[in-house]
């Protein structure tokens, strides 16, 4: 078996995992709980093996490098980080309901990685600028941050759903929405996840700056990618301050978690495929 097969299986496994979590939520099948978690953990192991194998394959090709150096590999690592983070949250907060809002993102990332025509999937050697340990640290730190922000956005969505229905009906545990976590707890976990993401994004911006400095002699040059990572950082800084010093909470924070997520996606995807298009059109 090669890494591509492992990663292919992972995509389907995360799809099934998504179905399990959603089914547990919609049909309230609590019995499935242990199985769902085990299944997801095994899918994660398969993905880990896939990444490990890809690493090994690159060495067999004589161009060994960690599988974290192009868009395709980073999307896969993104999915991996989402699942790791989600499983940690499930374990720490003893609830499986968040799965229905977090695991789908990992599945979507894997599906995008395997189906998209924009991404080159082959293992290619590294051009000189990419041969740096700072690059590896940069990708790892950024994507852990992005994964945290993604889970936070899932939680924000969950909050808004719960909030909307709570304000319409008196919630009780029997309705579908009633089985969601209490609002204050969703808010608490959203906040903690955003804080976690903020620290990693900060580290990601810093490692990126150090890398740029060692490669080109400028730690900051306001290129669109750098600038968007800073915009994302500002969005979360605003969110943390609004909550901590101005007491914002509830719906506003949930919306900010979602807005922050769009900023993350734009930093990650939009800059490469929308802005670069805009700019290359300009230079033609």
């Amino acid at each position: 078996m090669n890494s591509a097969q492992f990663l292919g299986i992972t995509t389907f496994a995360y799809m099934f995992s998504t179905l399990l979590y959603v089914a547990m939520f919609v049909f309230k099948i609590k019995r499935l709980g242990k199985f769902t978690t085990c299944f997801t953990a095994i899918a994660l192991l398969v993905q880990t093996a896939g990444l490990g194998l890809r690493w090994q394959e690159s060495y067999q090709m004589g161009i060994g490098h960690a599988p974290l150096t192009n868009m395709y590999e980073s999307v896969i690592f993104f999915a991996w980080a989402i699942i790791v983070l989600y499983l940690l949250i499930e374990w720490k907060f003893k609830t499986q309901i968040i799965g229905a809002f977090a695991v789908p993102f990992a599945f979507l990332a894997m599906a995008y990685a395997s189906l998209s025509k924009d991404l080159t999937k082959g293992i290619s050697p590294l051009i000189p600028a990419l041969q740096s340990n700072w690059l590896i640290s940069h990708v790892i730190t950024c994507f852990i941050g992005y994964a945290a922000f993604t889970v936070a956005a899932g939680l924000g969505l969950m909050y808004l759903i719960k909030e909307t229905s709570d304000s319409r009906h008196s919630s009780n545990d029997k309705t579908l929405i009633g089985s969601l976590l209490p609002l204050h707890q969703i808010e608490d976990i959203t906040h903690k996840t955003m804080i976690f993401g903020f620290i990693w994004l900060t580290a990601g911006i810093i490692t990126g700056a150090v890398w740029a400095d060692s490669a080109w002699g400028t730690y900051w040059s306001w290129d669109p990618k750098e600038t968007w990572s800073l915009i994302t950082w500002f969005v979360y800084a605003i969110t943390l301050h609004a909550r901590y010093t101005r007491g914002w909470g509830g719906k506003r924070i949930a919306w900010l978690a979602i807005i922050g997520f769009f900023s993350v996606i734009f930093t990650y995807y939009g800059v490469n495929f929308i802005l670069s298009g805009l700019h290359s059109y300009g230079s033609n």
Partner: protein
Amino acid sequence: MTTKPSSVNVFSLLWDFFASVKLALLTLGVLCLASIVGTIIPQGEAFSWYVRKFGPWQAQLFNLFQLSDLFGSLWFKALLGILSCNLIICSLDRFPQIWKKITADNLDTTVVRLQSIKRNSRWTSSLPPARTVEEIARLLGRNGWKTSSRELDNGTLLFSQRGAWTRLGFFVVHASILIILTGAIIGSLLGFKGTALIPEGRSVSEIRTTGKSSSVDLGFEVRCDTFGIEYYQNGMPKEYRSDLTLLEQGREVLHKSIMVNHPLTYKGITFYQSSFEAYRDFIITLTDKESGDRQIFVTPYQKQRTWEEKALRFGVINAEVSEDRISRMKIWITGPDDAPSVFWMDPGQTIPLTLHGRPYLISAKQMYATGLQVAKDPGVWWVYIGCTLILAGLFTTFFLSHRKIWIYVHQEKQATAILMAGSTNKNKAGFDGHFSRLTELLKAAV
């Protein structure tokens, strides 16, 4: 009756303005929007370019608001200035309160107040009060809670705290942002950035700076000895390498190879491998094996060169190019009374020859100029210190907390009554667990 002078009013108005978090939210929001604009409008093009792309009216508008160099514009710098003032004033404004909380005399409290703390526990002990206090202090000390104590009217109050300094975490985060900005300012005032294109075998001592049309004297010379590119099998570049020699007053002081991601720093000036230019000339190296004489010749394509001393004539008569790099060269060489040798060779290859009855070595390669990025940035250490501090500050703010424990021990009828209370400024749930484990430990002992 005296009225306040109006200057004080202006001062306090300004102070309040800059101490407000609302202003911080607004500034950060505006910075976001400005940055978005700066990524949508391509930066740093000429005015005519904007006219062509967006039309004259919009180009004028861009010019007016400096949108083509948004991040270098005065108003963007002003925004960063406002953010800095905001950070400074806001931190100064809050510092006294926070300092008070850190240095507060926590023994100066009352039993009633302790009883009103939600996280508390009471029990009694059969040990006499003095022994109880001693034992509790010993146990707490062993678990990392150093205690201080004070005698109250009816009993003894013990206090212990951890992480009081963590209240400074947010302060460190804000200060680091200022340190990073300071580093950026130092870099732009005292540093420079420039480029140099040095053909193999040549040297430069002046650098053209980017942006400004001036040049900087390095104070020493940089010579490029060789430039080489290594390729992967699929033709992608694997390594760009320049062998550099630094000279001071004609004396060689340092040899070093630089590659992308592996720059060279000398006297605060750093040289980065950034680009190269390929010439149509070749570099041919001839070595006389017997005497060890060696000469390097820059040889234009299809032009004859001579090594006068040895009476050798040679040249490159043909070359194969694949994807704009020379993959093979056809060399022609002859001594005074030899028949000419003509052969193909690869770049970097060395071939032995016999010419005019003597053994020689020949090697040849395409000639390049190395493109260097040259930078001096004395502010970069400030930036890196700020970056380290911001991470430390964020970690402190988010994961550490200021936790306090009070224990009041007093004689109550026949027994010794113990009241334990605890508070924390963050992570309440985590402290709950810790607090109950501590109480269990103490209850078991006294």
